[in-house]
């Protein structure tokens, strides 16, 4: 391709700044004492300490997975610090007590934690390195019986709920990274929507990695009781650093009878520079369980950041007539690698799942869709529709699709469509001939390509995601 399609890539990562703040960081290294120390720092009940230790011991028996289509340097788990927190550990009664430096950091990221300033009705839980620093709109939510707080707080205030659901969707032994997370997770968000309640606002968690040489291991647990509804958003950024940083999160969702949970992610961790130096290693286990009848869980993700992404938001369709959805846009540029997709496990009768994956590869990026649709013997009358489209920008990137399908009964059906296209010089020229410059042309073409996914995002998030897509591809076409 001429200079047009190869050049546009390198706008600087806008969120790459660091915040100078005093932290309580434990020395690098991982062993049972470290696990105990984390648990102690968080003043956890004994059952949880034991749960962590069990996970840790199991982790020791596991090997890091090598099957993904990813290339990255070996991770030295002993050189990472497993806990870092801004040094203001006392419990906050109001946002006014949050360290102004932190408020400013989030302000810079475009997230206002000051409730009165927020125009849109989005409640935010802000996680800074290992701990949650603020949760907004708590009172408003409380009136409806909704619990939305940091994970640590939930452990203290709602231990029964946490104990009941923690690990119920992603067992601590599930996989290498989930086991690691279960041993050392430091914070995250917890959300419980009681029976029959429609959450009146979007709930959102904003993850920020700041400290260097630390890993971020957060856990999110969302429970929607019978007939409840919630839409949950997750955003992530990190400073630009030369070293790679590990992020291994776990998200668990439980939807009971007739409940619905929408989970949307805009993942924009630092991706490393154009030569592949630095960037976040993002190894995430996200899974939802449609435990009740007629329940529904949808994952929508826009993945533009991280040097390495390993992520398969999945749905266990256990309740009869339950619905699972996965809508994904994954963008890789420069040296980024992504291996992402979903698993739809049909167990209940008449369960339905939809998978729409849009992979965009530019630069020397390498984008893999990996998906499993499994329809069990008893999941009669079930259906899956999968569509995987890849778009290539330039000649040095790649796209792969690995769809695995298992159907164990004859009354179910699975449909799969796939396409690969190349953003054409002719498309760009056509736009330019109508007066639209290259950058806007690419952004328009890509957004058109990803439209089916974007339309599932809440409005303001969609606008943000579209902008992000434009930025992360800037320089890939010129």
């Amino acid at each position, binding site marked *: 391709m001429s200079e047009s399609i190869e050049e546009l890539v390198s706008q600087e990562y806008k969120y790459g700044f660091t915040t100078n703040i005093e932290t309580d960081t434990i020395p690098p290294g991982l062993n049972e004492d470290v696990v105990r120390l984390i648990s102690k720092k968080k003043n956890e009940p004994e059952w949880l300490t034991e749960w962590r230790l069990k996970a840790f011991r199991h982790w020791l028996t596991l090997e890091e997975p090598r099957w993904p289509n990813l290339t990255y340097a070996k991770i030295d788990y002993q050189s990472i610090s497993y806990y870092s927190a801004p040094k203001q550990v006392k419990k906050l009664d109001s946002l006014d007590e949050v360290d102004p430096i932190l408020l400013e950091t989030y302000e810079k990221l475009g997230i206002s934690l000051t409730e009165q300033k927020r125009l849109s009705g989005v409640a935010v839980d802000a996680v800074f390195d290992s701990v949650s620093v603020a949760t907004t709109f708590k009172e408003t939510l409380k009136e409806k019986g909704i619990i939305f707080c940091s994970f640590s707080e939930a452990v203290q205030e709602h231990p029964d709920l946490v104990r009941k659901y923690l690990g119920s969707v992603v067992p601590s032994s599930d996989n290498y990274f989930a086991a690691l997370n279960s041993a050392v997770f430091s914070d995250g968000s917890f959300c419980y929507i009681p029976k029959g309640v429609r959450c009146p606002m979007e709930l959102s968690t904003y993850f920020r990695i700041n400290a260097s040489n630390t890993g971020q291991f957060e856990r999110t647990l969302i429970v929607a009781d019978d007939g409840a509804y919630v839409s949950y958003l997750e955003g992530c950024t990190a400073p630009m650093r030369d070293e790679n940083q590990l992020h291994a999160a776990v998200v668990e969702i439980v939807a009971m009878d007739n409940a619905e949970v929408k989970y949307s992610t805009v993942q924009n961790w630092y991706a490393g520079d154009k030569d592949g130096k630095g960037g976040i290693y993002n190894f995430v286990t996200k899974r939802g369980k449609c435990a009740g009848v007629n329940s529904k869980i949808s994952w929508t993700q826009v993945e533009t950041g991280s040097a390495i992404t390993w992520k398969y938001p999945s749905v266990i369709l256990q309740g009869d007539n339950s619905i699972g959805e996965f809508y994904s846009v994954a963008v890789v540029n420069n040296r980024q690698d992504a291996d992402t997709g979903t698993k739809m496990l049909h167990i209940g009768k008449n369960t339905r799942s939809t998978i729409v994956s849009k992979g965009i590869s530019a630069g020397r990026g390498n984008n893999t869709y990996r998906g499993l649709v499994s329809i069990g013997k008893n999941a009669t009358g079930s259906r899956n529709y999968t569509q995987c489209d890849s778009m290539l920008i330039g000649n040095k990137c790649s796209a792969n699709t690995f769809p695995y399908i298992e159907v164990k009964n004859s009354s179910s059906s699975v449909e799969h469509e796939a396409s690969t296209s190349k953003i054409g010089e002719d498309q760009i020229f056509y736009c330019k001939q109508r007066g639209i410059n290259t950058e806007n042309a690419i952004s328009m073409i890509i957004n058109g390509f990803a*439209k089916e996914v974007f339309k599932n995002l809440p409005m303001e998030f969609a606008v943000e995601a579209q902008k992000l897509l434009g930025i992360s591809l800037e320089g890939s076409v010129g």
Partner: protein
Amino acid sequence: MIEIKNLHANVNGKEILKGINLKVNAGEVHAIMGPNGSGKSTLAQVLSGHPAYQVTQGEVLFEGQDLLDMEPEERAHAGVFLAFQYPVEIPGVSNSYFLKAGLNEIRKSRGQEELDSFQFLKLLKEKMKVVEMDQSFINRPVNEGFSGGEKKRNEILQMAVLEPKLAILDETDSGLDIDALKIVSSGVNKLKSPSNATIVVTHYQRLLNYIVPDFVHVLVHGRIVKSGGKELALELEANGYDFIREEMLQSA
């Protein structure tokens, strides 16, 4: 309006245009005819700045400016419009969104106010009437799933909205049925004014019954080998290109 002098252009190292000279004044309609592969579309693409073509010699002045020095979008801003022989599909992008973006870029470059969605939609609907296009095309993705004739009509719709100074229509008539040909031609004629000009590339004299040219040029092997009035088109229709080739041989 536009003056092309000794224009040579290559594609993939092969010379396609071998010294084109052509002058078009405001208010004029020029027709370019010629056998398949003679370089008509290449000329159109070079004038609008397609990156696959390299100009090796010559110059093009558009209202006194060096056209070849401008980016394709700058040429569009200056008022050059190409109706593509093969219009391009842009999945997921609606026709109106696309056209509004183009129009507003052009307006911006001229220091005019951008149109908001309501103003634009009103304009678009007016122009759709001119080319008798159904309003269902407003929200359909650009050219995706359009029939051959619908794509051509869509090109003329875009021209009607963007109101170029110089419109180059590359075989806009091919693929149009007889009624559509009349509608599209009358659309083009309605847009004609003393201050703009049109270059129509066609194989068929029939189109020239509707869009009547002031001049007809015959392009063979990358050169304009004969120019004349509208009767030249009739002559070609009757005799094919052979008589020109013979004339060329005789004069050689």
